């Protein structure tokens, strides 16, 4: 079953893997993105995510449909958590099942790339020295002194 949702509570990744398992699926790839303590030498204390919820869920469902068209026989479930997250907690989970493993890996990686392009979710990093909305994965903002 395909599920695409924004959630506020801690994510149980296995639930999404279970949703995509089927008798004809030989492979399930489950990706989880976790809050990392250190990014480019800057220590993150915790993160906060916000989303434009209805559009985010719609966009994630569109990505799932793209995947199921591009890789025949795949099924996808995606969830992203919003609110405050601590170090190590799961921010995003992507489950893809497929008859064969190659498609499951490729389709899963495609999902996370597409989420990072188009799904209206924003991360605010809170460091020891300040906080900032992160708007571009390639440009880490300079730390501002408080």
């Amino acid at each position, binding site marked *: 079953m395909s599920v695409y949702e924004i959630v506020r509570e801690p994510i149980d990744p296995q639930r999404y893997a279970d949703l995509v398992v089927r008798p004809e699926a030989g492979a399930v790839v489950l990706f989880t*993105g976790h809050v990392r303590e250190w990014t480019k030498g800057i220590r993150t204390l915790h993160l906060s*995510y*916000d*989303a*434009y919820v*209805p*559009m*985010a869920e*719609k966009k994630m469902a569109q990505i799932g449909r793209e995947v199921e068209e591009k890789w025949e026989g795949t099924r996808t479930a995606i969830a*992203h958590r919003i609110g405050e997250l601590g170090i190590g907690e799961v*921010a*995003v989970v992507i489950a893809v099942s497929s008859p064969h493993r190659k498609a499951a890996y490729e389709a899963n990686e495609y999902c*996370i790339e597409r*989420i*990072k*392009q*188009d*799904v*209206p*979710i*924003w*991360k*605010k990093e809170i460091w020891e020295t300040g906080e900032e*909305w*992160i*708007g*571009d*994965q390639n440009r880490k903002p300079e730390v501002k002194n408080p």
Partner: protein
Amino acid sequence: MIKLLYFAGIRDLTGRPSEEADLSGRTVEELWKWAEDKYPGIREGGARIAVNEEYALPDDRLGEGDTAAFIPPVSGG
């Protein structure tokens, strides 16, 4: 009336999560001009506008009751 939604850094700039404005019949590009006038710098970060939950093109025209959201560069995942 058009409902406008602001998110993340753009919400910090506007100081509000949403508002209504009399912009029916305007294009998305005209909405940008209106917003830049009211909130200088709103366009600098490379935001996109979504109309009724779909990314819009500059020539798309707003209709009565539409919702237009200012979407700063996303950073989910």
